[in-house]
């Protein structure tokens, strides 16, 4: 128990360490309001005023106040174009675009507003954004005429002013047009230039805030989903918990101090029904998919070599017995190649969708996958069931279905093995098939010890296990996966015969 506990704590620490910086940012921002204060803005404004030569009328307090009061109060990027059109200095202008692109992303966002203050945002392909951005950047006058090349992205006609904004992780463009062919005056242009410097400040703040929020959401989600009760304390103040405080009993709480964060992490080591297994499951599937993919890549070449060589040897071979053996090598190397390819497709996230599959094929593949775990235990499918299975095609998620069958067969063989050599009769796994108007049913029977009545209602609970090395996740994952594919798992003891039968109902 102790070992399992500390392994989980290690895992949680690893989980947290990955995001230490983000976590720190999050908890700091909890204490300190992340919205920039008025004072901070004033300071930034002063700096830009000093840095840039300002045209005369900027010395009028009204313009600065306007920018400060209207642009500064933009809570999100979407409202900035409308706010710009609301400025007195640009009251003759009808269309404003603010296009923001995070460097390296395939798309940017094009926020715009027009004379009737209808604001909208659209995506813009990085290619188009970059073309517009570099045209703007290269231009000295920053004054353009709408042409066909920008037709789809800019909702304006005639002359427009554009100014690029370069930030650390983003590039942005401010575009302003009065939808006429009148060129802007030099005063308008100067005002526009000054505006762009202000917009740069505001969007930096908003983007930073968005980034922190995104990270926050990610961390909170991960922590909430963590399949243990976690509470994080800063000194004695609880700053995060994925469980109501009353449900944690002190005797079971592990208390760890994380020096990197100067925070206390409390983990309640309690198997609760609401503990989610999805995180574990996702990790397992991803790992398996990766592993199978590597295996396919590493094995497919030598296996192809084998089948090619056997083909060559076959064409030269005159000895009947040797030919048969070589034929056998050829057949088996091709079979190995097919098996590994099928499995890697099965666990490939790209093919992880609903597909029409043959039920027999899934059973067969799952059986192959369990071979090493249940080598000595014979598995029987009645011939008529087998024939019926071969004809049935269903639409489902083959990965999930195969995993359920896989788990049930592994469980069955472990149940049989648990009897050890004390058992008189040899264990057997029987796979049978039923169907009616509503569902197909796959039954997996073992000849193990069966399920004691006192644990019958617990066996699908996460972390419930009777095996010394079990994680207690197998059946809870099966149940969850079955729900996902609109199926149901039930079980019954085979009494008076030995063992238990698990039934998977796939609704039609």
């Amino acid at each position, binding site marked *: 128990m102790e070992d399992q506990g500390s392994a989980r704590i290690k895992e949680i620490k690893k989980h947290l360490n990955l995001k230490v910086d983000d976590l720190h940012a999050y908890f700091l921002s909890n204490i300190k309001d992340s919205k920039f204060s008025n004072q901070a803005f004033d300071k930034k404004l002063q700096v830009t005023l000093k840095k840039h030569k300002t045209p005369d009328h900027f010395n009028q307090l009204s313009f600065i106040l306007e920018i400060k009061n209207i642009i500064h109060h933009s809570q999100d990027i979407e409202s900035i174009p409308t706010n710009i059109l609301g400025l007195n200095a640009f009251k003759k202008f009808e269309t404003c675009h603010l296009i923001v692109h995070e460097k390296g992303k395939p798309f940017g966002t094009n926020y715009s507003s027009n004379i009737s203050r209808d604001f909208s945002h659209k995506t813009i392909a990085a290619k188009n954004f970059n073309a517009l951005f570099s045209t703007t950047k290269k231009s000295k006058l920053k004054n353009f005429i709408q042409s066909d090349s920008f037709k789809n992205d800019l909702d304006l006609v005639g002359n427009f002013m554009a100014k690029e904004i370069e930030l650390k992780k983003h590039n942005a463009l401010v575009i302003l047009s009065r939808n006429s062919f009148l060129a802007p005056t030099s005063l308008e242009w100067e005002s526009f230039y000054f505006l762009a410097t202000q917009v740069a400040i505001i969007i930096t703040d908003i983007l930073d805030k968005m980034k922190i929020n995104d990270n926050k959401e990610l961390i909170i989600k991960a922590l909430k989903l963590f399949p243990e009760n976690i509470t994080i304390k800063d000194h004695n103040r609880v700053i995060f918990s994925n469980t109501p405080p009353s449900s944690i009993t002190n005797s079971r709480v592990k208390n760890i101090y994380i020096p990197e964060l100067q925070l206390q992490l409390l983990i309640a080591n309690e198997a609760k029904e609401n503990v989610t297994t999805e995180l574990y499951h996702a990790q397992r599937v991803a790992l398996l998919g990766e592993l199978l993919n590597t295996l396919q890549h590493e094995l497919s070449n*030598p296996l192809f070599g084998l089948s090619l060589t056997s083909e060559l040897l076959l064409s030269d071979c005159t000895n009947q017995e040797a030919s048969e053996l070589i034929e056998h090598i050829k057949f088996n190397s091709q079979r190995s190649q097919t098996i590994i390819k099928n499995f890697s497709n099965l666990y490939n996230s790209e093919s992880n969708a609903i597909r029409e599959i043959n039920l027999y094929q899934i059973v067969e593949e799952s059986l192959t996958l369990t071979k090493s775990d249940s080598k000595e235990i014979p598995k029987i499918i009645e011939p008529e069931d087998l024939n019926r299975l071969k004809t049935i095609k269903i639409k489902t998620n083959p990965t999930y279905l195969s995993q359920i069958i896989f788990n049930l067969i592994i469980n069955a063989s472990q149940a049989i093995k648990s009897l050890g050599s004390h058992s008189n009769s040899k264990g057997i796994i029987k796979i049978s098939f039923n169907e009616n108007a509503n569902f197909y049913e796959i039954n997996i029977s073992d000849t193990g010890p069966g399920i004691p009545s006192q644990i019958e209602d617990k066996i699908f609970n996460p972390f419930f296990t009777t095996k010394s090395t079990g994680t207690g996740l197998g059946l809870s994952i099966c149940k969850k996966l079955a729900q996902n594919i609109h199926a149901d798992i039930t079980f019954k003891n085979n009494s008076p015969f030995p063992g238990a039968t698990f039934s998977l109902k796939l609704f039609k």
Partner: protein
Amino acid sequence: MIKILLIEDEPLIQKSLKKLLEKKGATVFVESRGKDAISQILNQDFDRIICDLMLQDISGFDVIEESKKRYSPREISKLFIIITAYSSNQVMEKANSYNCKLLSKPFQNIEEALSIFLNEDQNGPN
């Protein structure tokens, strides 16, 4: 007689393909390492170069890039046939950029693959 350079580092594939091609009357030179292959390509004339992508030292794409010192892109598109077990989209895209024929390993039909390798008057890519 067609003179082929086969660049492939999996010994079983290399030996078998060499034998199979020789049976069809081709003269086959083999290389396992990309760097050795490059010096062959720059110093000898071949009618066809069959090149695996994942070699021990460098990639098949590197071999093709080096061959540009001697051959034009058009010549390369006719000379080279790429064989690969890793036909991901990125690999396919890159291979297509050379306009070469590309065969995925394992070959679905060995006879067909051999005739593609031996086709002397092939008019470039399809």
